[in-house]
């Protein structure tokens, strides 16, 4: 396994050694290395929720020979490994800040009464391929609020995000002793048995309900069954050792003002999760509400400067993440080659709360990159089409997702 050097102090000089060869945990039937498995395909989907200044993001010129914009300049070394999009947005997704709920779901009109979200891209994929890893997906957020999340279940319930890198580290890499594992397994069993019991209780209630209420109660029953299955899967994983990494647990940063440092810390953890194949589907909500005020810049030059500074540092953090993924290899390919990194925002202009012309880019993952795909600014191209391409890249046989009308035009797989 190749070594990688992290930037952060806790990573400094410490290579990552894995106790488990990749994929072994998932194919117990075969001897390690006796037959190469399918190439693991992964996705990291990232949204920042307060817009990205469009004048510094969107490049001039389309196609291969476009000119890097100030923000993209920060990603210059990876120019050939990402595609930048313009003139894209989610059809019908309006409602200014409300749209932050829909970045990965594409559900129209989140601001309206009676709104119900759809399933998010990562969860859609997790239903198919989530069983291949210890964690079907990781839902992460960098936020002061516990409501921040990009991931939604099939019936639109928000999945609470893990906000602490140190908790994430615990979850991924720290395993209790035998007694603790046994206790955990027993707790999971008791949990399942209790779910079984309450599931039966809902059947009793069903008998007294009207047909429409019965549907409602069915939702409860389904929730109980789904959780039961999940606990069952967790029980299976509980007996398998977690991967060991030669990296100290991170120390969380509490100050929301330091959101760039917080982003870096989260990126470091994500890279470890990918490298150890703990999960292949990761969503990250970067909440930049601390700079909400200055996003309403009202075109004041000094405020624009301040905002630009913050955003450039965010792109530097992203560049660092891409660098880490490039420099770590797996079976001869870089992690970036196998990991799609979607980076974007729900607002085209935070100053006017516009939800069209979303700054978006996709790096890595096995596409022919290096281009600016420019679509119509007045009549946007559906961003959800990109999601269909991404799902197909993950190996899902689907040609529809949310409001998509097909795959992303002009984006080819390698």
């Amino acid at each position, binding site marked *: 396994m190749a070594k990688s050097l992290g930037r952060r102090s806790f990573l400094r000089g410490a290579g990552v050694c894995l106790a488990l060869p990749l994929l072994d945990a998932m194919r117990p039937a075969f001897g390690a290395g006796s037959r190469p498995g399918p190439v693991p395909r992964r996705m990291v989907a990232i949204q920042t929720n307060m817009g990205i200044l469009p004048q510094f993001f969107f490049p001039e010129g389309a196609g291969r020979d476009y000119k890097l914009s100030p923000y993209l300049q920060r990603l210059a070394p990876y120019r050939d490994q990402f595609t930048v999009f313009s003139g894209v947005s989610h059809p019908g997704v309006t409602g200014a800040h409300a749209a932050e709920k829909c970045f990965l779901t594409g559900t129209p009109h989140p601001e309206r009464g009676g709104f119900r979200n759809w399933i998010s891209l990562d969860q859609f994929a997790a239903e198919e391929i989530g069983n291949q890893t210890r964690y079907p997906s990781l839902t992460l957020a960098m936020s002061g609020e516990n409501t921040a999340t990009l991931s939604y279940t099939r019936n639109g319930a928000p999945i609470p995000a893990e906000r602490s890198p140190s908790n994430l580290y615990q979850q991924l890499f720290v395993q209790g002793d035998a007694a603790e594992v046994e206790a955990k397994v027993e707790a999971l069993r008791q949990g399942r048995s209790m779910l079984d019991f309450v599931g039966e209780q809902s059947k009793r209630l069903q008998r007294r309900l009207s047909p429409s209420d019965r549907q409602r109660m069915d939702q*409860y029953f389904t929730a109980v069954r789904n959780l039961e299955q999940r606990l069952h899967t967790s029980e299976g994983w509980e007996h398998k050792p977690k991967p060991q990494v030669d990296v100290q647990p991170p120390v969380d940063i509490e100050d929301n003002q330091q959101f760039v440092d917080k982003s870096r810390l989260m990126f470091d953890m994500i890279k470890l999760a990918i490298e150890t194949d703990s999960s292949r589907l990761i969503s990250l909500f970067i909440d930049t509400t601390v700079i909400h005020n200055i996003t309403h810049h009202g075109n004041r030059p000094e405020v624009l400067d301040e905002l630009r500074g913050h955003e450039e540092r965010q792109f530097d953090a992203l560049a660092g993440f891409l660098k880490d993924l490039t420099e770590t290899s797996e079976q001869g390919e870089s992690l970036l080659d196998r990991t799609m990194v979607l980076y974007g925002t729900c607002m085209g202009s935070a100053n006017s709360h516009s939800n069209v012309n979303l700054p978006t880019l996709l790096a890595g993952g096995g596409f022919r990159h290096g281009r600016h795909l420019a679509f119509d600014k007045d009549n946007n191209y559906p961003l959800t089409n990109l999601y269909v391409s991404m799902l197909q890249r993950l190996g899902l046989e689907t040609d529809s997702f949310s409001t998509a009308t097909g795959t992303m035009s002009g984006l080819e797989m390698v």
Partner: protein
Amino acid sequence: MRRSTKARWIATLLGCLLAAGTSAASADEGAVREFFASHCLDCHNADTQEGGLDLTSLKLNLSDTATFSRWVRIHDRLKSGEMPPKTAAQPNVVERTAMTDRLAGSLIEAERAARDAGGRTVVRRLTREEYENTIRDLFGMSGVALVNTLPADGSAHGFDNNADALDISHVNMAKYMEAADHTLDLAIATQSQPPTCKTQRVSMARHVGHILGNGDAVLLRDKQPDPEYPPAGEHSHIDQGAHERLGLFNRGSSVGVFRHEGESFHPYFLEFAALYPGRYRVRASFWSFHWDKGRVLPSRGVEAARLSVVQLQRNGRHGGHPSYVLGYFDAPSIDSQVHEVEVWLNYKDAFGFNAASLAPVVNYSRKGRAMAFVGPGIACDWLDVEGPLHDVWPPPAHRALFGDLPIVEFKREEHPGVAPPQRTSLKQEIIAVTNRPDPTSGVWTVHSDQPLQDADRLLAGFLPRAFRRPVSDDVRAQYVAKVAERLEAGDCFELAMRWVYRAALCSPDFLYHVEPAEKLDDYALASRLSYFFWNSMPDERLTKLAASGKLRDEQILHDEVERMLRDDKSQRFVDNFLGQWLKLRKIAANDPDRKLYPEFSAYLQDSMVAETRAYFRELLDENLDASHLVRSDFAMLNEKLAAHYGVEGVSGPQIRRVELPKGSPRGGFLTQASILKITANGTTTSPVPRGAFVMEHLLGEPPPPPPPNVAAIEPDVRGASTIREQLAKHRSDAVCATCHAKMDPPGFALESFDVIGGFRERYRSIGEGDKPERGKIDPFIPLSFRLGPAVDASGELPDGRKFDDIRQFQDLLAADTHGLLTNLARQLAVYSTGRAMTFSDRQPIESLVSATEKQGGGIRTLIHELVQSELFHTR
């Protein structure tokens, strides 16, 4: 349009309307045909499609929701007289009424058909607030914090308790299991004796040691500078640790603070962090002073000292955030005033402090520091915390689960093969804190000699309370059988019982409002009342009334509503209802730009919210009429708000009723700073969102969403143009004009108020403009903004009535008391029943509004009428 298409369409329309309408309709057939042909189709046909409406292609299938709402709009436009337009020939009153009645009949019929087909979903789960309050009341743990451990709820039709929004998934289930475990951990007593109740005097000096050292605070004794640790002057005090070891921060001196909290300064009382969740009594002593380079003089008035409860994280080294504000307390000039409050504390809760009414002034970087400073300070003498307070042991939470069963030591050797309850020992993890847990030994747990009989008895008490209705013997037997199974598997009694209690708290009977399909039964009625007014389960009295069948009695129901509104728990109704109806929950969504609004503070924001809540409470208590929603001759103010509004003679942080000077636009919700802040973005205001807010939330006429592909206005505060000028372009576009003509006028009137609800005659700007007057802005706050263009708050309502300013606009709005009351009735109905109000609900709402008006139109009367109505008693 060709005659034949038109004729065909009318024939279809009639078929539909008549089929769904009354049977004796055929006589009017010709009249209906004539009506649409002569009044509507000239403009709303396939070629012209005025206002985007083409009647010839509009579907007639009323079971389709989009088509249905389109027809509702047609009905409404006809009924209000908005259509046909004034310029066209008008139908006479009889024709018009006949037509709208017919349409209404069809719409109501269609709704009934949909409902009979099982289309209305109403069984719903608890929201997370309801969940938390229910747990609090079920176990008597008044401050246990659970909301933030549960996934956020959606919201529909303006409220989160709406069935449409309350989905459930495996994620919710997993969190319910965790929350149930957490609740049971807290509820079950693990000792036979209560934890020692201690009184601890906590000093703030140690925590603010560094600012004492640099002159942003001073130590005081007997209202004078403490000679042992004089105020920092030319030099700052160095080596805080050495001073600490000398005991200088610990000898009972008062701390006088000049510095407001900020990003890098959050003072709190360092030596105490709660270990045992429970009730505590807090006493604190505050006063204020004017500091003049080392001299303590009488202060400018009553200052405000804020106490908050801070939930510390991990070992506390990274601080915490103010979880919630405990209150703003009077700090009178020189004379110490002692305040006492009782509060529930959770594990790792500590107390925070803020010199709330002071400007953000710092001395550390100034020459001469405190010895050169002249200005206001707030002093804290001490803070005492006493607790945990237990009137009985085991506490009510434990009794709810285990009654009076004895708590004995569990000795493993006496119970071979039996799993003992799991206990984690309590630790004080917060560094620098001095309170410690009581020493314990052994594992203590409830003991039962006849476990299955006890289980049956305990569950017979617990389940009906938790499920808010009687529980059949059969269901209880299923739970008891589980206890038996767990005992068999080797669990001790506590563990076995815990298993079923957790199941009960995760069962649909607990998590859902289980109501019969049509008429509510007595228990469902009791729950509807308690979740309406207390956001929680019914108490014992309500349940007894339900059980005895007396709750439906008109007088008893009236008395119960009165009792519930008097109860402190009704504050949950006020907070929760306003939080959603008037979007008060969004008060902190934007922090105002610091340069444009330097006078903004957290204290001002908290005062805004307090005003709106107190005002609603006053409307309820005094049973005032609906014109008060938009216009009032009094306001609920404290000193901070009074200064903000330019009202004289109010002193201190407590909110009280203040009669307004003549001509003041303040008082009603419309012009409260909270509403004005929520409808702005922190930097600029726009008439559009504000107008839309007034229409939707106060008038009950939500404007349709903007058409797609219309660019929003890019706000610009460089001072060159006003929002009104930018908007003019927008309004001149015919597509935009129809809606904006309705939506913008309220927003224009509110242009007189800035983003923090201050009255303005000119816009503030950064860059161009004139130097502003200071006015009521604290002299210690630098004025960092300029004055730009003048505000024009005039406008014209769609019906042609004009106004010059906010006062005239208020009069126009207040004239429509009926409309305001009807909207409030609808909002309360949606909130209390947990479902959207539909077309067929209009008539019932209309009748309860008119019943209210006959009795003077008071808002408390409205609530009584609602509770007595058929609407409230049906699901």
